[in-house]
């Protein structure tokens, strides 16, 4: 029987594990779960891990992995070695009964979602971590530990733990700014407001690219995925890239000058107007 091979790393995605089990059933594939966590700890050389994994793919029809930094290096290398199609950072997966995988991901920077099919015998995809909900009661095949790998072509000399990025993914309230904030000074003001109401500061990719906010604040497909109780989007137009990172929020408030900004279609509450005036009003009221 052909396999659906799920590769987990040091940051396993249990929601993806659940999704993989569903996909395997529908696509009539055998689910196999392989963890490369030990290999990741043993070597910093992702190319050696990818090379070693080739031998594990003989029966694979589908190979999935969470889109962590390291698996996003390992999977492309494996895909090249298998000459298999690979879709990056998917936010949706479906499968036909014949095992054809349909992969959905935001595309081309504006409001577009692309559905992608793979033409090679092996179909590969990395999946945005946290995209699918986990099921603590789910039953899965035992995870195989894979560690058949040693290389010092890339060596880790030092590792410094960083806690800075945790703030945004665990915050109850996030105040997020976009290009509409207009300046770094504007962001300072937004940050002060965020602190005042006990919120973490987020940013859209445009705002980060413009240098208004640090990358660690970026919410969206190439930044953090967040699911706070309240997400306040200020001066954010609502590109798919951004929406993919915050659609899990319980309540979304949008503040934007442009009544036609897509963000309003993805918000529960909205105010159309100048963000600074509105934030000033809110500061007085709170």
């Amino acid at each position: 029987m052909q396999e659906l091979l799920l590769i987990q790393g040091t940051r396993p995605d249990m929601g993806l594990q659940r999704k993989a089990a569903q996909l395997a059933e529908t696509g009539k594939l055998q689910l196999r779960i392989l963890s490369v966590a030990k290999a990741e700890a043993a070597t910093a050389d992702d190319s050696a891990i990818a090379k070693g994994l080739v031998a594990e793919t003989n029966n694979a029809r589908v190979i999935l992995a969470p889109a962590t930094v390291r698996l996003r290096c390992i999977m492309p290398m494996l895909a090249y070695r298998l000459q298999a199609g690979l879709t990056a950072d998917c936010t949706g997966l479906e499968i036909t009964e014949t095992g054809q995988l349909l992969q959905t991901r935001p595309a081309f920077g504006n409001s577009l979602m692309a559905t992608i099919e793979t033409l090679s015998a092996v179909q590969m995809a990395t999946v945005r971590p946290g995209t699918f909900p986990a099921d603590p009661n789910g039953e899965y095949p035992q995870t195989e530990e894979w560690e058949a790998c040693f290389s010092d072509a890339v060596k880790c000399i030092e590792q410094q733990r960083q806690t800075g990025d945790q703030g945004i993914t665990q915050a109850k309230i996030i105040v997020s700014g976009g290009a509409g904030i207009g300046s770094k000074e504007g962001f300072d003001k937004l940050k002060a407001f965020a602190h005042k109401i006990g919120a973490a500061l987020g940013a859209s990719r445009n705002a980060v690219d413009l240098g208004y906010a640090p990358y660690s604040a970026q919410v969206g497909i190439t930044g953090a995925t967040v699911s706070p109780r309240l997400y306040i989007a200020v001066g954010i137009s609502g590109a798919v890239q951004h929406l993919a990172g915050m659609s899990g929020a319980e309540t979304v408030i949008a503040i934007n000058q442009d009544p036609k900004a897509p963000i309003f279609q993805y918000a529960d509450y909205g105010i159309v107007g100048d963000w600074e005036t509105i934030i000033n009003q809110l500061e007085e009221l709170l």
Partner: protein
Amino acid sequence: MKQIIACVKLVPAAAEVALDGQFRLKRDSTSLQLNIADLSAVEAALGLKEADTQVTVLSMGPAKGEALLQELFALGVDRVVLLSDRALAGADSLATARALAAGVRCLGEFSCILCGRRALDAETGQIPGQLAAALDIPAVTNGQQLEKADNGLSCRRLLETAVETLTVELPCVVSLCEYSYTLRLPSILGRRRAKDKQVEILTAADIGLVAEQCGLQGSKTKVVHVDTKAPGLRKCSYCNPEALCGIIKGVQ
């Protein structure tokens, strides 16, 4: 170090880009800019340059990118090679990496290949790894602070919850994060020297590829459908600051 190769992509400058009937980017209709992360790759390459080092920039894309690439000479880049051919258009990351690897093989011996970690348009971030696999050399992705080390390079790798200091053997591929370096400005001397230099344009045939290996034909992924709406639509009630205040207080 003999030769350092920096891979750059020219991406559409406009936020809104048009797609053709096969969901490919219409690259002819928009103006181009250098991909932001690739600016760091070029600067890091120039920073590592020694007296006998050649810095080569390799790019793939439409011929109209030539003018933008020409400007890189004024910064101290020694050679610019643009892979440009109708046959190369519409490539997914696998076919792109195959073409870039074929291009690299035409450039002669090299110490390292530096890339941006992802492109602003398609954002797959898969090229650095796939290029390294095609050339069978190690790669480090998400890099910052590249320096010369005893037997190769040292750099920092940004992981989700940690920053690692790594050493990597040569030859290798390193992909760099946006803003890890600020690209230098051209000097007057640089501008003068740039006048005598020309971007070399190579076709698929020049780098030894046949049509089946390139572009849309050589790709293993296919966009079958495009939706203009993201999931997660909500019904928006428009309100005043007073009402918002109540909602915020309710969560606090």
